């Protein structure tokens, strides 16, 4: 090794002597990828806007438009501003874990960066897990921000008995939409298509799932259709855990089962269809 080096030998090796593929080395590589991916995300103003600022903006707009209205929820009525908090949390989780994931993964793949990384010893599992951690953590962060705004501005506090359910919903939702984001990204063949395709999936599902329009104001058949897709189960679970009229733990196993099934489907598609090489050209 040193015979090949013209100057002094290489500096401190970031990689330990652990053989490739062994758990400590893989964990270190995942952390390594996560650190640099996070740095890229923080410096990307477009990602920051769509994942962190837009959901807060939506909450502020909906809450001020329907300032004095209230809406029927299971067990009673809720101020409309408070009603929108769990819905916008669902939207924010989807924006961070799903929409931003798709746009980022397609951009990285189509720019040849994955192809470039393929020529290195970096395993696919480190690439995917590092990226998924970014999606999940940004989703958790924006969910926390909206919860704090809901509490500080609209006086909505989370009942203690449903707080664990809320935390579970948020974490499960982030993981499920990460898997789905990776899965959908494998079908998109160009950077230009990723934003429109993402919007075409997220916006209609958000409208029929009670995120922008309260579920009680939607026709039953529409709600029944939306219950099959993953957005409605997440929104409904979050509302149940956030709603002060909810009795019991706020856990809806049926919703969580549908959500989990979607996550498993996404994971299977994502791992089977993951490609290092650009899909265009």
């Amino acid at each position, binding site marked *: *090794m040193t*015979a*090949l*080096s*013209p*100057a*002094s030998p*290489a*500096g401190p*090796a*970031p*990689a330990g*002597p652990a053989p*490739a*593929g062994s758990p400590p080395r893989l964990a270190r*590589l995942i952390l*390594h990828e996560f650190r*640099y991916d996070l*740095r*890229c995300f923080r*410096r*990307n103003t477009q990602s920051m806007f769509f994942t962190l600022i837009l959901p807060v903006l939506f909450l502020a707009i909906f809450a001020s438009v329907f300032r004095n209205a209230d809406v029927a929820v299971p067990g009673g009525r809720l101020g409309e501003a408070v009603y929108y908090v769990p819905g916008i949390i669902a939207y924010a989780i989807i924006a961070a874990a799903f929409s931003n994931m798709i746009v980022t993964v397609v951009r*990285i793949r189509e*720019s*040849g*960066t994955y*192809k*470039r*990384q*393929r*020529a*290195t*010893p*970096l*395993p696919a599992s480190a690439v995917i897990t590092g990226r998924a951690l970014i999606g999940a953590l940004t989703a958790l962060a924006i969910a926390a921000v909206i919860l704090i705004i809901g509490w500080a501005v609209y006086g909505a506090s989370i009942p203690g008995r449903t707080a664990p359910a809320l935390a579970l919903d948020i974490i499960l939702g982030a993981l499920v939409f990460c898997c789905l984001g990776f899965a959908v990204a494998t079908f998109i063949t160009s950077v230009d298509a990723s934003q429109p395709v993402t919007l075409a999936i997220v916006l209609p599902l958000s409208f029929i799932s009670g995120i922008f329009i309260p579920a009680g104001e939607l026709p039953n058949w529409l709600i029944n259709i939306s219950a099959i897709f993953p957005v409605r189960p997440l929104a409904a679970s979050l509302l149940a855990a956030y709603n002060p009229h909810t009795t019991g733990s706020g856990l809806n196993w049926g919703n969580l089962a549908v959500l989990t099934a979607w996550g498993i489907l996404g994971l299977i598609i994502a791992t089977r269809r993951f490609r*290092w*090489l650009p899909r265009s050209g």
Partner: protein
Amino acid sequence: MTGTAELVDSRLSGVRAARSPAGQGRPSGEPVIRVRGLQMSYGGVQAVAGIDLEVYPGEVFAFLGPNGAGKTTTVEILEGYRRRTGGDVRVLGVDPAGAGGDWRARIGVVLQESAPEAELTVHECVARYAGYYPHPRSVPETLALVGLDGRPGLRCRRLSGGQRRRLDVALALIGDPELVFLDEPTTGFDPAARRATWDVIAGLRDLGKTIFLTTHYMEEAEYLADRIAVIAAGRIVAEGTTTSLGGRDLKASAISFTLPDGVPAADLPPAVTACLTGHADGRARVSATSPLPLLGALAAWAHARQVDLPDLQVIRPTLEEIYLQLTGEPR
């Protein structure tokens, strides 16, 4: 990139002088790349139709061919990106189709098209890749090697095309590979950036790396390569050193000069007129596989007539001409 033209020139001449004569001779040692009967078809269309290749340690091997000849397909099979449909391939003793991370740690790849993470700095980008390898080179040294040490804090999206290519080279070298693949490393470069990149590549040879280079520029192959192989329509049509490729060393030279005033072509010595290929515009052109006797006859004739031939030229066939003949590309 940062150096002046003068500096680049002096570094290049130094590299030239240091170029080992051994590279021009017979290669020795176990081959780093050994390809036997490689075939690749895409849906019935044969892109590579059974090729053999050998690349030896410390060599700069240039792989030339027109677009669509099977060049990129072959390189991507060697790099482990694609699975072949037939033949045997060994790169560093391993079949790339089934190679793992340990093998990838020993190769470096510079792709034709690749964009670095736009929001990372040059230093961060290289440090990120350093983390993938068991025994990486030092980041500052590698940046210095490619001439990017002046701007380590520059965001990658602000890099020029030439700087990005240098970053690509740095990323390929950071793992301290034994074998480096360079796929059209200077396409789209201005002459100064091209020269500077050649300098970097020549520097890799001095580090003892084996280099597999593809290019469209004959002067690039001529300048850098120890050996050249030409692929056309999925087959190797010629292989040799830059001087011997396609029988270049045996091919005819072109001798040309302007006929002195009032001297018709018929007055030239018989040995010259016998080889005359044209003189319509008052400029005589002679083709000669053995130019020296003709030049002797021409000199004696001119001396006897007391005329001069001030624009006398002897031109060897260029590598480009040989290449175009081999690949059958229209001029």
